[in-house]
């Protein structure tokens, strides 16, 4: 498989030959940040377009068709509209926190985005606590949401933020348990190492029953984590106008919107990394020619293919299920997902100890 570190090392050496090492590192940081943010925005645009088209297909419609061929330029028009809108400052709001909140949300999702392994060697942050770091960064986005609700000085925002806090913090637990199941199976927390270990079979096949159960629980909890239907209580339109971002306008609202879509991408990408092998092609141990053919498809295609498939599944959930009631949300988590997750973790541990994995 093509290793992207050859490109990055070449750039590194080129920069080091031109300037002192400290400057080279600063330039590299800026380059990486620019590329990551650009990729972040591009994926957000692709996702918004995909959401509209998939939603339309599930409702037997065509979706946007007018702006550009098949409505391809619709999202760009929307983004442009969002950019030229005024950012309204709310009277009697806590203006510092009010302005800080969207940046916290975006920062959390960009940091998480940087942990994703797009292809072999194409990963910004990779160290031995990868999964742990990923959980930490993805969960402080809820802080931004809570601040947004609090500082808006609006009761709907406040209720939305409180619901979001209660929901995201409790579903974090299920996500943690599912990740722990995979970590138990692999014995490592480093993301590149996790992907590397799936070279003979993906974890969902290696860990068979407990891994599949963990995958399903992860998808449910991940859906709740991104505040999307059927877990869209924090911004339930019919109850709370728009929930925590009711008072936001212009690009501040745009940040929440983009972060929400990118959180969906991140949840799907993590699911594909942990369970479906990330950028690792479909390998079946024993069939060498088959594995060879699969290797010709680049890793990034595998990664994005799996990720967008999971995104499609999550959108399928969204446009199928009705919204949960506020009392049903903690019931599902604490009475069903957490106990099942704990038992599942125990089963996985037993499987690993007894050597019942593939």
């Amino acid at each position, binding site marked *: 498989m093509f290793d992207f570190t050859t490109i990055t090392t070449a750039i590194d050496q080129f920069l080091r030959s031109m300037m002192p090492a400290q400057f080279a590192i600063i330039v590299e940081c800026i380059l990486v940040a620019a590329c990551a943010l650009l990729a972040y925005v591009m994926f957000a645009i692709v996702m918004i377009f995909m959401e509209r088209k998939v939603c*339309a*297909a*599930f*409702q*037997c*419609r*065509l979706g946007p*068709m007018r702006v550009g061929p098949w409505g391809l330029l619709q999202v760009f028009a929307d983004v442009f509209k969002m950019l030229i809108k005024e950012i309204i400052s709310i009277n009697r709001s806590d203006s510092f926190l009010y302005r800080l909140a969207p940046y916290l949300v975006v920062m959390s999702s960009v940091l998480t985005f940087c942990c994703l392994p797009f292809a072999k060697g194409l990963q910004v942050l990779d160290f031995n606590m990868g999964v742990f770091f990923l959980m930490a960064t993805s969960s402080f986005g809820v802080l931004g949401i809570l601040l947004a609700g609090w500082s808006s000085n609006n009761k709907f925002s406040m209720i939305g933020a409180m619901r979001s806090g209660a929901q995201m913090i409790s579903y974090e637990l299920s996500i943690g348990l599912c990740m722990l199941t995979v970590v138990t199976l692999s014995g490592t927390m480093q993301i590149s190492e996790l992907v590397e270990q799936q070279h003979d079979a993906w974890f969902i096949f290696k860990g068979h029953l407990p891994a599949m159960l963990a995958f399903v629980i992860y998808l449910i909890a991940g859906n709740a984590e991104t505040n999307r239907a059927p877990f869209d209580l924090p911004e339930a339109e019919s109850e709370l106008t728009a929930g925590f971002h009711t008072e936001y306008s212009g690009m501040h609202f745009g940040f929440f919107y983009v972060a929400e879509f990118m959180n969906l991408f991140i949840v799907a990408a993590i699911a594909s990394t942990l369970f479906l092998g990330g950028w690792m092609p479909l390998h079946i141990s024993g069939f060498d020619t088959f594995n060879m053919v699969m290797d010709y498809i680049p890793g990034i295609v595998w990664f994005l293919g799996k990720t967008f498939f999971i995104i499609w599944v999550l959108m*399928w*959930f969204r*446009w*199928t*299920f009705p919204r949960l009631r506020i009392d049903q949300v903690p019931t599902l988590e604490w009475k*069903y997902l957490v106990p*099942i997750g704990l038992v599942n973790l125990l089963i996985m541990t037993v499987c690993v100890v007894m050597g019942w994995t593939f």
Partner: protein
Amino acid sequence: MKFRDTYIGKIFNGTRSLLTGLGVTLKEFFTKKVTEQYPENRKTLKISDRHRAMLYMPLDENGNNKCIACGLCQSACPNGTITVKTKTVTDEETGKSKKVLLEYTYDLGCCMFCQLCVNACPKDAIAFNNHFENAVFDRSKLVLKLNK
């Protein structure tokens, strides 16, 4: 207590019902989409035969209509959309006088497409067609003379 009411039973029952819902939407995902892309598909656009867009008077090849100028449509219309102007002519052979239609005026701008006039007509002399592109720039253009 039945199995489906127990904790474990609820999990299986809930999963089954969620999968049923997913199956319904998946089928919908792959069905042909119903959206009509109107201005582009004008050539192939099919409006339902029962659609009521505009009142018209079916004419035969000589331009004759079946109207007997009875005025039932005019009195049936709740909005006063229809005005039937008549004149009395004397039949030369029998010598009897008879009402004939002079002018049948229909104000599309007032019509609420209730079809009461069509139902009232004893001779099926009027009907609704589905020429629905009725936008004009002047209200007076909506007042139509239906007979030749």
